């Protein structure tokens, strides 16, 4: 019985450590990884501040539309969360093309420092917007100075600079285009690995503490 408890405790510990990571297998990147050079950020995205970026479809992987065209579109900006302090408030993230737009709300406590954090648009698939003149807008809804996140900008986006609070910036937004694909096989695979690792470790711990005969 006590070894069952050890196994469960170990499993819970590993689930706590890797749960988010495994859940993120749901998303796959449809674009080449962005290059970040001379990074800058526009300051905290408090209420009313905006960052706009025209999406650069030339960065899509060549097979992205064939493989992921019908999948839900997500955009993952690269956030600065100020050392993961407890940020609060929310951001509205909008994608607009000439004939459609979709919006999602992001809780600012979620993004981690210097990490991509995806925002998914359930109403849009990749093929519905890819290749079109699409603008991503990130707008502060109710964030306060000292507890809001911001996004990183990079100089490596020649030709497509961002607009910050309506004014043209020298740098472009760092973002990744992702799609929701599910990947249940890989998620299950990771969970099974977690379970079996916990099981083997439990068996080893049991073997170590028992006074068995060789």
């Amino acid at each position: 019985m006590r070894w069952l408890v050890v196994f469960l405790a170990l499993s819970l510990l590993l689930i706590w450590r890797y749960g988010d990571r495994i859940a993120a297998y749901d998303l796959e990147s449809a674009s080449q990884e962005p290059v970040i050079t001379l990074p800058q950020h526009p300051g905290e995205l408090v209420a009313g501040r905006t960052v706009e970026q025209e999406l650069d479809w030339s960065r899509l992987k060549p097979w992205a539309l064939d493989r992921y065209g019908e999948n839900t579109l997500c955009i993952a900006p690269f956030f600065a969360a100020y050392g993961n302090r407890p940020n609060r408030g929310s951001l509205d993230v909008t994608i607009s093309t000439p004939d459609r737009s979709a919006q999602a709300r992001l809780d600012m406590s979620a993004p981690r420092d210097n990490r991509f954090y995806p925002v998914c648009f359930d109403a849009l698939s990749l093929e519905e917007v890819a290749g079109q003149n699409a603008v991503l807008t990130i707008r502060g809804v109710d964030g306060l100075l000292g507890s809001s996140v911001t996004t990183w900008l990079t100089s490596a986006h020649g030709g497509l600079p961002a607009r910050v609070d309506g004014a043209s910036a020298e740098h472009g937004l760092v973002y990744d285009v992702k799609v929701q694909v599910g990947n249940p096989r890989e998620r299950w695979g990771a969970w099974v690995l977690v379970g079996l690792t916990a099981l083997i470790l439990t068996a080893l711990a049991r073997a170590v503490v028992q006074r068995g005969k060789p």
Partner: protein
Amino acid sequence: MDLNRSAFWVAAGFALMALYLAFFVTPPGDIPDESGHFSYARDIARGDFFPLLGEATMAPDLWGRPREYWSTEPRDNWIAQHPPLYYLIAAGPLAVGELFSETHPVVYRLPRIASALSLGALIFVLYRLFSVAGVKPQRALLLAASTGFVPMVMQLASGTNNDIFLFLLSALASYYWVRFLQDQQIRHAYLFALWVTLAGATKMTAWVFMAPMVAILLFEMRRPPWAWLGHAVGVTAVALSFPILWMSRNLLHFGAPFYVYAEGAPSQQIQDYGFLQFMREQPVLDSIFAHFYGLFGFSGYCQTPELAQYCDGIRMTRLGDFPYHAFTDIMALVVLAYLVFLAMVFLRLRRAAGNQTSAATAGDGLPRSVQMHLQALLARPVVVNGLFVFGLLVGLGASLALYQNNFSRPGMAGSTQNLMMSVAPLAALLAGIGVLLSGAVRERLALYGAVLFFFFGSVLLYQVYAGYLDAGWLRGVQGRYFYPVLPLMLLALGLALERLRVPTLLWLLVTGVLALAFLDAFVTQVIPFYLSVRI
């Protein structure tokens, strides 16, 4: 539950994990050269038991590709250069599967069963090897399990590839080799020879391991001269039986006993490129070490036949971050412990020198071995001191030269790694001197591992260097090539830690860190890599 049973269940856990990865996670084709290994196994499953290098081709329908996407030109299967034993076994599940379907996606994964089960058997055999040699059984189990927590070992066990099976056969050969050194029962010598020839029937790298193993066994054999000679011939003949058959076949077909696949004609033969310059400028040891821990991917990214036009070459990634750093640091500490152990051995040998109660003169009724004669001759304080100083100076010089001339990546892992690898000549030389002087079998077992490892590594290094001069690019820098000598190297480290009285709980903690690193590697690097490159 006794420890053998615990070891069995732990081994079964590893086999189960490898089976799960084989059937549900590792993409088909994402094990090094899996397309060739699979094609070889399938040739056998379909009745062609000895496909010939140069004639054998890759299966055109790999991984269930529909006929309209089959490659039009047959591709050479260079994997046919390997001896056939692993493929004979891997062909079994495939032949059974093909009775039901030749194209079902699961069929292409069936030969992987052989590798996955080999991993389970390997963990158990390693546990038996370590415990029979003198590592406390609990710690022996932890050491054996740590091997399974090397991501590359698990990766290879989840694919169609001969390395884990070779590792298993080498562990079995090492087990009987150790038993013979301990009890001098001649059947153990022949069982060693049998397993080692089977290892030689699996991969030619085992031939390199076989030579010093047989030599040491004869060096340690305690028989009257004529019996010694008879068994020397007998054991050598059994050990060499398969390699000789394979060499004869190579001679018959290709005119060279060691014939292997040549990757095109030598493209740019390099002149005036010294060995030290080669070591300084090329990431040789760095790659071997990094690839030992984890080099993932191959051609498995190409999974959608309709998008095959985007498939070009291979996609691979090395493990990094926490898992790699944790492994490097743990290995560095273990190597440091081994150096401390060597110092303790020499202190003991100095004290024991001249004391004629050592095992060399113990009256157990058996004649002396060559080792014992030498030991009796050398076990004098002045000789021990002289040999120790000689080993220390020459070994330190060689290690320093290696350290200064070894390519090293900047950063902590690179420096730790460089230091750790650079002590190999020093450790091997001192260990080599130690086996001449030590009267305790268990102590010699802890020394032979370093000697064998260094010998094997030197041969590999020479091959890599010669290959570089020939082809102009670095090849063969795979840590998995060390699997044949790993059982005895691990045993040496285990016995050293045993001698240093490292507490079992610390072993458990280290195994726990390796397990966490292993899981971290798969969850945060390997599976995301599969997803990020998949077409």
